């Protein structure tokens, strides 16, 4: 339980991929969920879209260490993350949010955010227990950063309220702040805009843009059904359908592609719309 030094990854500016999927396959029983997925996530925003059940969340789970693929490899800045536990992947600089926000209900918003910064505490719990000045400084610095992040994402008004007092949309933003406190090389957002009001979405977009400006070598992978948001944020988007990447490129072009239209329309018809 000693303090583990942050496993920092050497950072290259430029256009080298932050994360690369190469031929990733995954099936549960007889169901193939991912099939030969090859995808390079470069610095900046990348969208991952597709109908329900296409395997988008499975992709995130494969990167964050919750699932091991049956085939292929996933690398973070050139190093494979396969076989690492979720905690180790996170300590290498991968953060994520969940479709439904998972916060600690009775901790305040700012303390929830602070939970995300575990790899940046230089001192261990023993130093904390003894009340050493260095441990107090860690705590103070992380608290400051957490307040700043909440501020930047438009939640600066009531940072000390318990998390369960916030509406769902705000809880999702608290989750984003928690993910950012990890100072990730890769941030993965699973439907961040679902359940958010237009104003909240603007705050979220501003906050993420501001954060990316300071970290030009970091990548943000967004799963989202709000295609307008994807078009607004992401220079590139990949479309996943039945576990396969069927198209990728600039969102505007991708969304006009007949194969993609077919996939979405087909899914909509199947869903009974």
């Amino acid at each position, binding site marked *: *339980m000693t303090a583990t030094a942050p496993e920092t990854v050497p950072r290259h500016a430029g256009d080298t991929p932050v994360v690369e999927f190469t031929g990733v396959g*995954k099936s*549960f029983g007889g*169901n193939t*969920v991912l099939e030969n997925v090859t995808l390079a996530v470069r610095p900046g925003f990348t969208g991952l879209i597709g109908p*329900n*059940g*296409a*395997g*988008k*969340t*499975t992709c995130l*789970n494969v990167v*964050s*260490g*919750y*699932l091991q693929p049956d085939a292929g490899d996933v690398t973070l800045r050139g190093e494979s993350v396969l076989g690492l*536990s*979720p*905690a180790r*992947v*996170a*300590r290498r600089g991968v*953060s*994520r949010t*969940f*479709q439904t926000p*998972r*916060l*600690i*209900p*009775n*901790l*305040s918003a700012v*303390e929830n955010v*602070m*939970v*995300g910064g*575990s*790899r940046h*505490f230089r001192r261990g*719990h023993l130093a*904390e*227990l003894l*009340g050493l000045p260095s441990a107090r400084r*860690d*705590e103070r610095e992380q608290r400051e950063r957490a307040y700043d992040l909440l501020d930047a994402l438009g939640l600066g008004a009531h940072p*000390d309220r*318990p998390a369960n007092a916030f509406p769902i949309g705000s809880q999702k933003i608290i989750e984003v702040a*928690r993910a950012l406190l*990890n100072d990730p090389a890769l941030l993965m957002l699973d439907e961040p805009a679902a359940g958010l009001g237009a104003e909240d979405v603007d705050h979220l977009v501003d906050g993420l843009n501001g954060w990316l400006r300071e970290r030009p070598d970091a990548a943000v992978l967004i799963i989202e059904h709000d295609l307008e948001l994807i078009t607004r944020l992401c220079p590139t988007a990949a479309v996943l359908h*039945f*576990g396969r990447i069927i198209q990728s490129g600039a969102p505007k072009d991708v969304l006009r592609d007949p194969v993609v239209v077919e996939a979405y329309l087909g899914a909509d018809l199947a869903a009974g719309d």
Partner: protein
Amino acid sequence: MSELTTQPAAPAEAPSALPAAVTAGITANGAAGHAARRGSGLRKGIVAIVALVLLFALPFVSNTYVVFVVSLTLVYAVSTLGFNLLVGWSGQIGLAHAALFAVGAYGSSVAVAAGVPFLVTIPLAGIAAALLAVVIGFPAIRLRGFFLAIATLALGMAIVELLNFAAPITGGGGGMNVQVFALPGINDAASTYFIVLTVAAIMFFLVRRALVGRFGRTLQAVRDLGQLSGSLGVSALRYRLVAFALSGFVAAVAGTLYAQLQTFIFPAMFQMNLLVPMLVMVFVGGAGSLWGPLIGAAFAIVLIEFFQDLGDAQAIAYGIVLMVVIALLPGGLTSLFRTLGSSRFAQRLYRRRASTEETS
């Protein structure tokens, strides 16, 4: 292919597989951690010190019976402090607590009989129990809910049973006498009381300090998010194991004091008839709260007086109390105070007082 196919993919561990009522009890405990830290920290510190000084004066102003009862309350409060850390803060219903308490009581008493000074046996017994708790916790941290409860209960019972078998050292089922340590120049009861009070103060100070900071936050993350806490860079299994070790340490420290207080110990003291009231103390005080253990222990002492003549039916009576408390007061008594404090009636009182202050 529907959303169903990705469902098994999602790390869909329920926040915890505890019985719903128990989880309600744990989460119903509002922002105990951050409320304790916010504002008026200095004033709270002063209140704590004044209370401590007043408690130290107790033997000079009251009789031995009162001193004994307060000592016992403090011992149970320390034990509950450890149990609450495991059950309330880390969210694991580990039921070996009475056994680890017994390890403290027997470990200390046997070591004292062998010539080790009593004060030295307090940390030693704590460390021994912490190691034992790690052994118990190693399989247990992978289990949730009822499976965790049953596994730890069985291991705990095995430990108490071992005390029976180890008759040459422990006196077996017939029990053993405890050599009571007395501070020079002070009578036994008062001396034990001073030691109990000092150790209790230290344990409360340390555990509180651990829980209001990062360690407490991380434990709560592990409790509320389960394996999803991995995505925050936190190893849930490691924190669960540390919670076992710490609660075992605290249990055994309380156990050493308990032996000094009872002066005679036997294995049957540490079975269900102790474990169930221990659970009552956690939930009456409020699982996951900071000062709940003190309140829970005081409440249990009253119950012990009540149920004294019930004999074997005691455990049943405690079980009923436990069920009633979880059903009616899921956050424990500490949450009751908070609920009352934020009730409309109390708010009106505050407002009236504020307005009279303004007008006067």
